């Protein structure tokens, strides 16, 4: 009997070798490990075996049965692995196909640059202050030490707003603000109102839209933004101005960037200064953007003129301050190599999407 079982066992193994799918494996299992399989019924035939042989034969039957069971499990696992491998192969993607586009919102480039500028000043204790865009001549010019007929008015071509009852040859009293500087007066008066005899110190940045009567060209626009800054206190000096703006330039353009200060003129500051930063595109070596000078003009500044301090409610004998102003579009253009300022308000998707 044992010999027959051994033969059946060998036969089962070789049949198992030929099995290639789950169905055949199932049939094989029924045939060789099922209830009616010869090996399973072998114990029932133990009578045929001499008694002294029985323990040995019984052990052997168990061994053969376990071996077939193991062979079965191994085969089942091999088939499962083969199936998985096939499925994985079939599910293979062309990973070079494009991904699914996700809608994505962006801030306007001007907003981004303004935020960047403002954030740096905020970290130095400046607060954001905004004010109106249609202004009186008084706030836009006179309180800033630009009386009527002052030559500095030639520096800023102005849009005038029609005001009923004003004669054609009079200077109209309402303008589109030509700079964010009227905000200086608004801010000073607002702070001074807290304690008129002892006004508190001020550190504000004033971002906003300004307007100039100009032809629209690649280099000039009828509207553009400015970020103005104002610091007023009892111990604010020209050297603070230099330090603050140099620190801003390093955070904005890189820790290595050098700055340069040149005398300039603004009616509402004295001394007045223009700050250049070393061209961050060529490292100061000279390139078309910096017109081969190695420097980029980025802002105008100065110590607040005593008349302006007084107009804001701050006694120039006791207080001093500095102010500065810069153009976010210009800075954006320099950084990204934009040649045409008209892109900003044209809002072409192909421009905006690149930020």
């Amino acid at each position, binding site marked *: 009997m044992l010999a027959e079982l051994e033969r059946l066992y060998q036969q089962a193994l070789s049949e198992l070798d030929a099995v290639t799918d789950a169905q055949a494996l199932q049939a094989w299992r029924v045939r060789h490990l099922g209830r009616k399989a010869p090996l399973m019924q072998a114990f029932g035939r133990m009578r045929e075996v001499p008694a002294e042989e029985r323990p040995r034969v019984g052990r052997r039957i168990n061994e053969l049965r376990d071996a077939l069971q193991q062979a079965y499990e191994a085969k089942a696992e091999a088939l499962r692995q083969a199936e998985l491998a096939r499925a994985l192969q079939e599910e293979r993607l062309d990973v070079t196909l494009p991904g699914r586009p996700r809608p994505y919102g962006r801030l*306007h480039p001007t907003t981004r640059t303004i935020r960047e500028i403002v954030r740096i000043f905020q970290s130095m204790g400046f607060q954001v202050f905004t004010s109106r865009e249609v202004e009186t001549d008084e706030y836009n010019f006179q309180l800033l030490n630009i009386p009527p007929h002052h030559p500095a008015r030639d520096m800023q071509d102005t849009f005038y707003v029609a005001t009923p009852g004003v004669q054609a040859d009079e200077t109209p009293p309402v303008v589109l603000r030509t700079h964010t500087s009227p905000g200086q007066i608004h801010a000073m008066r607002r702070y001074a109102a807290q304690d008129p005899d002892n006004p508190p110190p001020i550190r504000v940045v004033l971002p906003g839209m300004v307007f100039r009567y100009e032809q629209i060209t690649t280099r000039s626009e009828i509207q553009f933004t400015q970020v103005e800054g104002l610091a007023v206190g009892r111990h604010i000096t020209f050297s603070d101005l230099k330090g603050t703006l140099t620190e801003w330039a390093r955070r904005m353009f890189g820790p290595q960037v050098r700055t340069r200060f040149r005398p300039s003129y603004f009616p509402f500051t004295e001394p007045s200064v223009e700050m250049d930063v070393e061209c961050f595109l060529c490292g100061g070596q000279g390139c078309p953007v910096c017109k081969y000078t190695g420097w980029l003009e980025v802002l105008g500044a100065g110590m607040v003129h005593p008349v302006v301090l007084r107009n804001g409610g701050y006694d120039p004998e006791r207080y001093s301050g500095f102010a500065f102003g810069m153009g976010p579009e210009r800075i954006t253009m320099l950084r990204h190599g934009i040649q045409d300022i008209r892109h900003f308000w044209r809002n072409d998707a192909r421009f905006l999407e690149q930020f």
Partner: protein
Amino acid sequence: MKVPVSWLKDYVDIPLTVEDLARLLTSLGLEVEAVHYVGLPRPADATRLDFKVSGLGWEPDKIVVAEVREVLPHPNADRLVLARVFDGEQEHQVVTGAPNLFAYKGQGPLTPPLKVAYAREGATLLDPYNPGQTLRLKRRKIRGIPSYSMVCSEKELGISDEHEGIIVLDPDAPTGTPLADYMGDAVLDIAITPNMARALGIIGVAREVAAALNLPLRLPDTAVVMEGPPIAGRAAVRITDPEANPRFAVGLIEDVTLGPSPYEIQRRLKLAGMRPINNIVDATNYVMLEWGEPLHAFDYDILVQRADGQPPTIITRRAQPGERLTTLDGETRDLPPYAVLVTDTAGPLSIAGVMGGAESEVRATTRRVLLEAAVWDPITIRRVSKALKLTTEAAYRYQRGVHPALVMPALQRALDLMRRWAGGVVAQGVVDVYPRPARDTVNRIHPRDLSRLLGLDLPAATIADLLRRLDFRVRPLDDGRLEVTTPPHRLDIGEGVVGLADLAEEVARLYGYDRIPATRLADELPPYIGLDRPQREAAIKDALVNLGLQEVVTYRLTAPEREARATVSGQPRPDDAYVRLVNPIAHDRRVLRQSLLPNLLEVAERNARFVRRQALFEMGPVFLPRAEGLLPDEPQRLALLLTGPREEPFWAGAAADDMDFFDLKGVLETLARVLHLPEPLRFEPGEHPSLHPGKTARVWLGAAEWGFVGELHPEVKARYDFGPAAVLVAELDACALRDALPDRYALQPVPQFPPVIEDLAFVVDEAVPAAEVEAAIRAGGGAYVRSVVLFDVYRGPSLPAGKKSLAYRLAYQAPDRTLSDKDAARIRKKIVKRVARAVGGTLRG
């Protein structure tokens, strides 16, 4: 202002290269924008220069002073001559067509010879026919005569655009000397800021250079030989308005012969941007450029004639109504009443400080010249110059302020130059009327005051030295202060705190801005006064960006027609209904916008050519005129626009549907949620001039109307170049939204017990708004109703006509226990009852 370096060097010895001089001036606040080289060597490397560079350096070995010894006819051409030219080494034959040599043709050897600028073979010159380009002189034949060199015109050398005739140098020009050594120059183009009026004369620029380099300033001698009969009794001056005319002086020179000025003077005038006229006018211009004080020359005999043979009386006064004057440019001009005139007893002679009259100007026949030096009120000059659109060198200087003390040196200097250039005899004395002598301001400053402003501790002696270099008079006082008197050529130094700031600038400038330390702000931090608007606006923008919208920024300026295009009626409102510009730059940008919507539509229209899906927003002010007060309201608005497919096209799956009303409504609802608005938005059917009447909602933010959302009206849409997809827009009050943002918000506890989820569908009349059904569900279920999500709206054959079914997925939940089936049944019953009562809805089987 254009400053020839050679001229500047008349007054100060400058030990710097042209490039370093330019840098120095810029560092002093006299920004050199460009340098035009006229003979001096151009820098080999133009990088790292802060100014534009143009012109030509003359090669010393190739371009020299030479003499024309004889002019001979050209054998083959009438329009050419042959010049015998000696260049200091040898004689050359030069072919030229210069008309100003023709007069000498065939006259035999010239004594003395003509001095000319001679370019040898191989010399590099400016190409007269290609601006900015150079050419090299090559050997060639002109009409059969060999030619390899030339006598130059000003154009080839970069002096001016004069190309017709050759340069004829002054007779004392040394033959054989490199031309660059004789008159090589460079012209600095300096941008003069309004506070630098004192630098509108070359002496003023020289004074700044001398101060910066601590070198002496050499003023020209203004002594004048006066040998003629006295002027007294031969001319009188009367000032009627000293405010407008603080000083007026005249001198007289007789027996002059008008003719060209010396070449060197003409060259300088041209380099400075002025046209040489004749020796008399050139003298006035030369002195104006030198001192910054404009002068005017009258033909004295014409004045006498106008006074019927009597000695003329010059009267300065305001214009009378209807007065006119023909100015020396030939234009006859109506004079505004505020104009100040120089007149005589016969009427106007010139527009004071702006332009002289044609009748009394000097001419070839002039023998006697009455020379005016005066000072005028800057504001008057500015107004007149603007009104007449007449900007002259004189008006430019007077507008910025000319110190009256300059009158006398300028007058004397010019009389002396006329005497030297035009011959003649200067009458003894001058007539000088000076009713308002200028007072030089005085400041007493302490070094402490300066360090308070500059953050720089300078000893009094250093401050005094710096100021003295600029000609301030400085006297130390016993209390440590300095008494600083402004020099009599400056009007820009005030007194008191203003004077202190003015002097601080002078000290800082001369000391060097770059030498002042850079420090961190150490002053006390300001109080927070609740400036949170910008922060709130930023939060709104961020939320919109996170919702996938692109921010745009458009023009504030528009036109009523542009705004009308976005409405069904298309009727523009009158300009007066807008904030309107007096001086628009373009007709279609003449008013300030009252809505963001038209701009947003224009942006979307332009982009529709390139992109199908657009999701845009703009936040910014609109401008609404007010009945009271000068200034308009500037409320902030928020506009949104969606159009095109819900998703970008993708290679798998069907194309996405186009966005509709509910996409934009969803944006608003999500916005309200992420911004934690205390109350949900309310939408109710509404109407709007731009929108589809059936697809428009008024939006309420709490009790306040917030704005509109809807689909663009088909008639409006047809006016724009849009594709078939619907255009969804909203325009909302951004101030209300900003103010509705809560300072803080509380969180709901995260539920600990599972919810019961249940789907209920209600059949209601078609007219019942979904919002009312949901409200009834919430009211019926009370606090147990955690969420109500409408997941289906059904209309169809299985329902009676005029009915619709709304299917909701509801979640019931209690904070303290798991709800049982019995609880859920009780809640459901209440909801069904409430829906039936409130909107007549029945539970769908």
